Every structure is written in structure tokens, then in C-alpha cells.
């Protein structure tokens, strides 16, 4: 048993890593420019996405040319970084490259100063700046920069840069260990320490997500209770075998393929519009404390589990029918036991175990299904928050929700498999 659990955990690990890496990739590739700006002032907007460490390397190790130097990561501006990398590739002398980068920086500062004083024109300024930081011009050094006399001295320094023919070193790949000072490490540690950043309105993401998550969890709990209650009811339906029970079974069988968001909409329509019992905003009022009638949670929970109950009922009916054709049931009936007695004393034990484990498969369905149902009923839960932030393009919240739900859902799959193995030790899950 322990061996199986260990094996299953080991197999779960890749998907866990995949989830973490995927959400990290989402963080890096957020559409729009706010996240990618190197400005410290806008850094607070997307703390979870870029924790002010954009100039650091991505991961714990990186594949770089043989003559690469870790100094390149200390350059905070990315276009200088590329330039320095190329200069280093062609010269090989790290000190010279450092000096050259400093010179280029000084020259551009001097240029900017001249431009602000009005001594050079805008056209020349733009041309010179692009010449200084453009990769195309690097190979054709000494740099031919036009312009006025005051920075000719600086240009002399720039042109003093010497090229050694070390180009062959560029073609030898080498793995460099960077250590903890990288974006991924900082991102992960801030995630684990609970510093999930702020959303676009300046509210802390973690608090937003966990207040919403408590509501989703409550809804999932109520739905789970309803689903568990469905098992004895469908067993009871099997024993009654009257016209009404047949009608109910027929109804459930035909409605098995109707999705839960249609049920939710229909329930809402019936209760809020036709019968006028339910206030459409009742869940918002519950959230704000104007109302204390928590029984309304039964309505969305009912919509959530309805297709599952129909499915479960169908499965239980077939399973019981198969079990009732077996010999030991015939013996028991021949001895004079009532059908109901046989069912509760013998048959249930043999046929109900699969359904205990199938309940655990409901957890992921409930969590991801709540996205639609919460939206429809206006429950301020995780699904509602997700769609609201989708509409507002509130990426830190979206990434936080994705991360949390992914971890929980994949854990519940794991739990389901382990429970299945405990209840059915004979069945070997193929390894």
C-alpha cells in the first residue's frame, strides 16, 4: 500500500512541476506592457508577475557561450545587456567590455544633456542614441557618431576598444550555475511566503482570493452533501418500484445530458422570475451580512450536482440490477427474505463501494464547475472573481486563482486514486 502511494506521489510530481512552470510562464508572458516595464514606480502594480527583478536571469542555471560572464546579469538595462554579450563574444576581455559599456552609458548621458540644452537637433540625437545601443553597429566599431564637438573626447574613449579574435569561444556552449539570485526563485519564494502581490486596484491578491475561496468551498461542501444524499435515495427508489419512482428514474435518465449551467439558469429563472421567491442578488446580500438565510446555497448546489446525481443514479440502478441476478441473492430470496432485506443486508455491501470512490472524483468537477454556476447566481466566489478579472485583464488575480485551483484539483485526483486503491485492493492500477 505504502509502496503504491509513494509510486503515485512520484508520478504526481511531474504534473505539479508542470503546473508551477506553466503559471510562471504565464507570469512572464503577460500581454501588455505594464508588467514588462523596468520602471520601479509601476513595479507595485504587478508584484506577483515581476517582483522588481526583471534584470536577473530566468532560472537556476543557464546555457551560455564559453566566454560569458556573470557580470552581464548585473546590467539592469536589457539593451545594454545584449550589447555587452556581443562585445564580450568578440573581445573576450571582461574589463574592457565593462569599461566600454560605461563609456557608452556616459556618452548617451552626455548626448541627452546636450539635447536638453538645445545644442544638438532631435534628428541627430535620435540617430546617435540608436547608433550607440544598436547591435548592428557593434561589429563596425569604431563608432562613427555625428554631432557637435563637446563629446569628441568621449568618442575617443569609445573608439579605443580593441577587438581580439576570440570568436571561436562563442560557439562552445557552457552551463552556468547562477544560484538563488534569479527570477524564478524569487517568484516561487514570494508565492510560498504568501506575498502574492496586488491587483490593478491595489488590493492584496491573497486576501481577495481567499475570501472568495471560502465561499466556493462552502458551495462545494453543500453540493458534496447533496451528492452523498443521492445514494440512499436512489437505492430507495430501486426498492419501491412504483409508478412514481419509474417516472423519476425515466426523468433522470433523459436529463442526464443537460449541462449544469443550463440547470442553474433554469433554477434561477423559475425561482427568481416566475415564482418570485428568490432575490437574484441574495448571495451578494449574504456576503454583506444583510441576510442570514444560508439555505439559498442549496439552489446553486442542486444545479451543480444535478447531472452528477442523474449519472450516479443510472450507475447504481445498473449495478444493483446486475448484483440481483447473482446466485447468493436467489438463495436469500428462496430462504424467504424480503427483497428490501436482501438489498440492505447483502447486496449493498458488494455493490456500493465504487460509488464511495466516485464521490471523490466530484471534487475537481465541483471546483471547476463552480466557475459557471457562481457567475450565474452572482455568488462572490472564486469563479465569479476569475471571470471578473478576465474581463478587467487583472492578471495577478488570474494567475493566483489558476495556481491555487490547479494544485487543489490535481491533489484531489491523487486522493481519488489512493482511495480507490484502498477500497479495491484487488484492482491494480497499471503502472
Amino acid at each position, binding site marked *: 500500500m505504502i509502496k503504491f502511494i509513494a509510486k503515485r506521489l512520484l508520478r504526481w510530481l511531474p504534473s505539479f512541476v*508542470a503546473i508551477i512552470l506553466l503559471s510562471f510562464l504565464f507570469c512572464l508572458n503577460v500581454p501588455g506592457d505594464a508588467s514588462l516595464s523596468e520602471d520601479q514606480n509601476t513595479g507595485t502594480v504587478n508584484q506577483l508577475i515581476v517582483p522588481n527583478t526583471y534584470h536577473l536571469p530566468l532560472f537556476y542555471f543557464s546555457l551560455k557561450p564559453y566566454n560569458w560572464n556573470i557580470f552581464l546579469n548585473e546590467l539592469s538595462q536589457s539593451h545594454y545587456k545584449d550589447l555587452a554579450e556581443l562585445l564580450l563574444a568578440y573581445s573576450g576581455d571582461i574589463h574592457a567590455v565593462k569599461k566600454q559599456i560605461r563609456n557608452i552609458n556616459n556618452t548617451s548621458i552626455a548626448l541627452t544633456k546636450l539635447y536638453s540644452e538645445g545644442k544638438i537637433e532631435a534628428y541627430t540625437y535620435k540617430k546617435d542614441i540608436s547608433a550607440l545601443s544598436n547591435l548592428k553597429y557593434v561589429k563596425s566599431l569604431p563608432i562613427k557618431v555625428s554631432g557637435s564637438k563637446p563629446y569628441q573626447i568621449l568618442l575617443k574613449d569609445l573608439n579605443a576598444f580593441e577587438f581580439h579574435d576570440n570568436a571561436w569561444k562563442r*560557439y562552445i556552449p557552457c552551463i552556468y550555475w547562477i544560484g538563488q539570485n534569479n527570477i524564478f526563485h524569487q517568484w516561487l519564494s514570494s508565492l510560498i511566503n504568501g506575498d502574492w502581490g496586488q491587483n490593478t486596484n491595489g488590493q492584496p491578491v491573497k486576501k481577495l482570493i481567499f475570501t472568495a475561496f471560502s465561499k466556493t468551498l462552502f458551495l462545494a461542501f453543500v453540493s458534496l452533501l447533496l451528492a452523498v444524499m443521492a445514494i440512499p435515495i436512489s437505492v430507495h427508489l430501486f426498492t419501491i418500484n412504483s409508478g412514481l419512482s419509474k417516472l423519476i428514474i425515466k426523468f433522470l435518465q433523459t436529463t442526464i*445530458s443537460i*449541462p449544469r*449551467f443550463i440547470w442553474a439558469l*433554469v433554477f434561477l*429563472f423559475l425561482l427568481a*422570475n416566475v415564482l418570485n421567491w428568490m432575490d437574484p442578488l441574495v448571495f451578494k446580500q449574504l456576503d454583506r451580512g444583510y441576510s442570514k438565510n444560508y439555505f439559498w446555497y442549496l439552489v446553486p448546489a442542486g444545479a451543480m450536482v444535478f447531472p452528477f446525481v442523474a449519472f450516479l443514479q443510472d450507475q447504481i440502478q445498473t449495478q444493483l440490477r446486475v448484483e440481483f441476478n447473482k446466485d447468493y441473492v436467489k438463495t436469500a430470496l428462496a430462504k424467504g427474505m424480503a427483497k428490501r432485506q436482501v438489498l440492505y443486508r447483502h447486496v449493498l455491501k458488494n455493490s456500493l463501494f465504487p460509488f464511495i470512490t466516485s464521490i471523490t472524483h466530484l471534487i475537481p468537477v465541483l471546483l471547476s464547475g463552480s*466557475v459557471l454556476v457562481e457567475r450565474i447566481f452572482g455568488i462572490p466566489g472564486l469563479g465569479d472573481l476569475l471571470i471578473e478579472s478576465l474581463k478587467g485583464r487583472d492578471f495577478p488575480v488570474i494567475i493566483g486563482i489558476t495556481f491555487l485551483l490547479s494544485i487543489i484539483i490535481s491533489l484531489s485526483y491523487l486522493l481519488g486514486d489512493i482511495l480507490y486503491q484502498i477500497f479495491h485492493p484487488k484492482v491494480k492500477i497499471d503502472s
Partner: protein
Amino acid sequence: MNRWLKYGLIWNISLLILSMLWQLASIENQIDNALHGAYAPFSIGDRIHIFGTDYFGYDLLNHFISGFSLSVFNALVILVFSSIIALLLGVLAGYFANDGIRLRILSLFMLILLLVDIAYLFFIVPSPDILILFLPFIIVLTFISLDYRLWRTKYVFIPFDRIISSLYEIMGSLPKFILLICLVLFLEPNWLGYACILSVLTWVQKSRIIRAEVIKVKTAYYIDAAKALGIKDLWIIIRHILNNIQETILVTRIYAFGNLFLLDASLNFIGISGVGSNVSWGNILAQYRYDLSAWWLLLFPSIGLTLFLIPLFSLAKYLENKTN
């Protein structure tokens, strides 16, 4: 076959043909100015609207039929893509198992080296010199000439089953719906990309079933006989194995089609659509959420969905019972 199932299938097919004709006629849905800015049930503005209009004054019948054909088209394309992935991997894992395909060690080395070469070419891409481009090939040539005869005679088996099974497990424990929303949002794909994302996330269950079926069929004597006769693997797979599991494939395909149609509708309900146009049943249902008294916005798409899905799933169940 049940009488009701027949009626349902006739309804489905006629709806499909109607929507196709509708697309061919390419009737444009224009705003009815008389009804703009108000929800209206069966109404006569500038034109007659049998199903009523939505808030902007668009005809709902037009939305209903063109949305249906778009969703069906989407679901079909995704179905084809995911079926191709599922079939390929399922047959690889099921038929070749862990000892089906053997490779010479030399070929394996060549393969790995080729991959390394391609990665290396990407590595030097910023400023490639022409001569350097030939370096990987030179390395490979030296490897070949090192000890050719020894490697030629030794073989390794490729454990397809083990690789693909662990792929199933990794893909199976990812939360599909949430990931799908995020991927569509972040990658901002066009229509084809949308179809690709959906099919990559939904092939796993089908592939598992195909693998199990292939393993079941593989043990039959006629497969052994065919192998003994020297028939090639590819021909055995096409002629014998796929022929024998086609009924199961058909059943799973019908279920998958219904589920994909549903998935498309629920994604459209949230406001994510692959086609770029916002005409679909899910979109009409989302509009209903803004005004609960506009009952016709709920009634027609939900009845449409129900009447489309129930015969479809019943047909799948009927075929399933027939094959077993």
C-alpha cells in the same frame, strides 16, 4: 432503436441541414432600428422576429441558427484534431507496447545527436558563421566512424507504453477547464490556435480507451497469424486492428462531440470564443443573465442545447449497448 431516438436524430439532422443552408444563403443579421436598446419577445419591428430580439435589436432566430452552425463546425474541427492525437498515441502505446519497436543503438545515437544539433543551431543563431553551421554534422560523422560495426549489431527497445502512460497521468491530473481559460487568454490565439489548444487538452480520455481496446484486440489469433505471414505492422494496424475497434471509436467520438459542443457553449458563455464573432448559444445565454425577465433568451438556446444533446448521447448509449 427507440421511436423517440429516431425523432431526435431526425430533428438533429434537419437542424444541421437548415444551418448549412442558412450559411450558404449568408443572410446578414442587421440591427432592427425599431427595437434597438430593448429586449423584445415575438415582435414586429422593421421585420418579423419569430424568436424575438436581443438588447441591441438583432434577430434571435438568425443568431440561433448561425451560432449553432459555428459551434458545430468548431466542435468538429477540434474533434478531428484531438482524435488524430488520441489515435496515434493510443495505437502506439497499445500495439507496440514496450517491446514493439527496436532501434539500433547507432540509430538512437544519431537521433539524439540530431536533436542536440538542432538545439545547438538555435544556440548560435544570433551571429552564425557559415562554416560553423557544418560543425554539428562533422561531430555526427566522427561519431559514426568511431565504432560502426559494434553499434550496428546491438538493439534497444523503445518503451512507448511506459512513456505514453506517464503522459496520460500527467495530462490527466491537470485541471482542463481552468488551464483552457488561461491559455486562451494569455496566448490570444486565432481560430486555429484555439482549436489546437482545446484538442491538446482533451485527447487524453479518448486515447486511454483506444489503448485499452487495442490491447484487447491485439491478443487475437488472427493478429499472430498475420504476423507469421510477414504482413507489415502498419498494414495490420490499418486492416485488422482499426477495423475491429471502429465501433468503440465511433461511440467515444459521439460522446466527445457532444462534450466539445458543450465546452464550446460554456466557454462562449464566459466570453471566450475562438471564432472571433460573438454569435453563439452560450453568448445568448450570457445575455439572458443581464435581464432575467427576457425569458426567450433562455428558452430557445437551452431547449436547443437539450434537444441537440439528448438524442446524441442516447445514440451513443444505444450503440454502446449494441456492441457489448
